[in-house]
């Protein structure tokens, strides 16, 4: 964890015999960053997460809201499956088809998790080894306890295996790639999926209780594939940060730049505005703003508004820091020189002042992204963020917020790990960037070089 250890950054020779001419500052930044293993790990994690969210449609076997009331809460097939055994029968009172209450003998089952059995398998329906992955069929069981309360269990049928098909054809063109749910590309293929075997139709009533599904990371309480939900959720969770920082940074730059450069009354009034925003605790500001959003917007618009709110509550401090930087840059020799040469205000701000804040901007941006990701989680926990049927990691984690879920369907906390790693990765990368962009690192390097 030595990401910010400036002294470890290896000096890079910029002069000397046989070396290419000195590189630009961005190139230098990249070269230094590349040496930082932890930052690069963070970067790779981020690339992976952005990849799965962009290609969520193609990589996942379902659509993000394919509810199925028959296939709720099945465990992750990647790791195993669920088997049930009958533990007894009970005489329970239920209502029959004539709406009369009758006493009937009903079975009680108990589910059991089996590691690496009952889930993904490399045996074909006849039991021979094959390279094509198969999944077991799922079967419904209704269990009655001694007081007549019912519980639905799904269990794998060890005898029935279904092949996973690659690049299966879809009935309709579905989203295969998109940029955070906005620029959708549609096609009629997905990476993989399973089909309900046609021969099941001959099994009669029994077939109604059998299901062919592939839930690599398990299914949720509405019978949706968790992996699909997570991949699609990434479209929101991974973009909240980027969009949010983009908005707040833009406001902060414009505001800080103008205030710092012009000074005087402009500066005074602008700074009072930031103080006003900063004097209200962020959470209260976000919540009051949240209720102002019109309820008629569709989910995409609401999402954008939420990001906007998070950004609105977050830009003030950025603006103040940038103003401070601009204040000092304004008095720099090269700014004075530019002005002496007759450059207009806009040119001076855009060409000479703001570019010098670039390294600060990039580092801060990276380190601020987690604030938005975690902000979305907090809002979703309160039910004020992304709502069903849309999906985001915060929303998915909210569903796992009780002890029964943790006890009986622990795989539902997986989205929490995605949040954790995304935030971690941003911090790693941000730390590395800061080290790489640190002007003092430059200084010490020059001294040693």
């Amino acid at each position: 964890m030595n990401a910010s250890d400036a002294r470890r950054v290896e000096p890079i020779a910029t002069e000397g015999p046989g070396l290419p001419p000195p590189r630009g500052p961005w190139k230098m930044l990249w070269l230094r960053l590349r040496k930082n293993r932890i930052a690069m790990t963070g970067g790779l994690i981020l690339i992976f997460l952005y990849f799965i969210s962009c290609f969520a449609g193609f990589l996942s076997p379902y659509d993000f809201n394919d509810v199925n009331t028959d296939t709720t809460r099945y465990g992750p097939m990647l790791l195993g499956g669920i088997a049930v055994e009958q533990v007894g029968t009970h005489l329970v009172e239920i209502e029959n088809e004539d709406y009369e209450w009758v006493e009937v003998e009903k079975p009680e089952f108990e589910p059991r998790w089996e590691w690496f059995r009952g889930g993904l398998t490399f045996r074909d329906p006849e039991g021979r080894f094959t390279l094509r992955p198969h999944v077991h069929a799922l079967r419904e069981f209704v269990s009655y306890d001694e007081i007549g309360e019912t519980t639905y269990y799904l269990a794998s049928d060890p005898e029935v295996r279904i092949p996973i098909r690659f690049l299966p054809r879809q009935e309709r063109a579905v989203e295969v790639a998109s940029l955070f749910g906005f620029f959708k590309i549609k096609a009629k293929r997905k990476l993989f999926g399973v089909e309900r075997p046609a021969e099941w139709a001959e099994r009669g009533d029994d077939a109604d209780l059998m299901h062919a599904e592939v839930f690599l990371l398990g299914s949720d309480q509405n019978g949706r594939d968790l992996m699909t939900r997570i991949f699609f959720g990434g479209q929101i969770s991974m973009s909240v940060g980027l969009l949010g920082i983009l908005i707040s940074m833009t406001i902060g730059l414009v505001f800080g730049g103008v205030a710092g450069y012009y000074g005087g009354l402009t500066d005074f009034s602008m700074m009072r505005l930031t103080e006003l925003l900063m004097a209200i605790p962020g959470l209260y500001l976000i919540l009051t703003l949240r209720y102002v959003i019109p309820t008629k917007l569709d989910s995409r618009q609401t999402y954008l508004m939420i990001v906007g709110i998070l950004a609105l509550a977050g830009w003030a401090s950025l603006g103040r820091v940038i103003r401070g930087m601009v204040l000092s840059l304004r008095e720099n020799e090269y700014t004075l020189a530019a002005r002496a040469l007759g450059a207009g205000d806009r040119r001076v701000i855009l060409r000479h002042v703001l570019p010098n804040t670039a390294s600060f901007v990039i580092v801060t941006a990276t380190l601020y992204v987690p604030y938005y990701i975690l902000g979305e989680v907090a809002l979703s926990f309160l039910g004020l963020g992304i709502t069903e049927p849309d999906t985001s990691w915060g929303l998915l984690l909210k569903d796992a917020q009780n002890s029964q879920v943790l006890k009986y369907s622990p795989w539902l906390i997986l989205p929490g790990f995605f949040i954790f790693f995304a935030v971690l990765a941003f911090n790693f990368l941000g730390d590395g960037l800061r080290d790489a962009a640190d002007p003092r690192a430059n200084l010490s390097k020059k001294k040693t070089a």
Partner: protein
Amino acid sequence: MLTFTIRRLLSIPPLLFGVALMTFLLLKAAPADYFSQMEFDPAKSRASVIDAKRAAGLIRPVSEKELSRLGAVNVNGASWQFEPGRVLKDGTEIENRIAAEELDSFELRGMRYSYDDRGQLYLRIGALEGFGRWLGKVLQGDFGRSFKFNQPVFELISERLLNTLTLSIAALILAWGTAIPLGVIAAVKPNSFWDHSSGFIAFFGLSIPSVFFALLMILFASYTGWFPIGDMRDTVNYDNFTFWGKIWDRLHHLVLPTIVIGTGAMAGYMRQARGNMIEALGQDYVRTARAKGLPREKVLFKHALRNAINPLVTLFGYSLAALLSGSFLVEVVMNWPGMARLVVDAIIAKDEPVVMASVMVSAVLLVFGNLFADLLLAVVDPRVRLS
């Protein structure tokens, strides 16, 4: 420094005015009010909802003069005309009670009118008018009564404010108390076991969503039995404890929430402390001091650490800002009877007096916190001149 302080103090009242105005307008911009939920209770009549709204100062009766100025209006396919003492529907006079039932509640030219069952018409008070009324009362020292609890807001806030401050300050102490030593050790011995493990804790605390962390802690408490499951003190026996027993009980309850809030905050400070220390250690005067042959400890603590801490003071000032609302999610999940919980509920339910009063309290605390941090910085760092 005195002129600086005075100038800052003078800027506070307009700032508070701005905060109040903005918060009030935002609250009013939402379509619903506190009594909307009451309207959905089948047991409550129109009259009782209207009475409650009027008592809360959200609506006011419309005078006959104002009524007749409305002229003829078209509601639900019929033309209505209000005249002093009577209502005309499509030109024929209609009983007030019937009119009330048929018209119920309607919107005209941006104003919302509602009838009670007695046939009296009310007008929803607009945002600016409402703010004027609120401000007028506040200037007389009356912050109003909570709609929900029907008691003066400050009575309501004060105790919970104390609870929240207890938790936040404990978390602050934990965060700073661990962040600085760990950061310094990590800086002095980079790449050591200490550096790596403190870095790990820091990143862990930074990356885990606090609601989830809090839930894990609750489960931890209920499986091991080592810590109480939520709460601020023992529910059943607290009153029977001795003085020390009470203190112990409170501390025992404080541990888990403090860890949840403190770890997240600690990470940022620790990285900052480490960075500053590394920077300070690289400075010329430290090298000079080392070269002079001063003992290592002395150099570390006297020269490097003092300089490394200065930027942290500013950060400390900002961390005061989170004192009041930073603990909110943990308060909910771990049942801490704090203020953030109260305020968030109030915002959601639109309990305006509570929201306004608590935002004002927070803003005051925040402004003074920042002022305090600036002054503190001037005291510890002689290079800073306040003007």
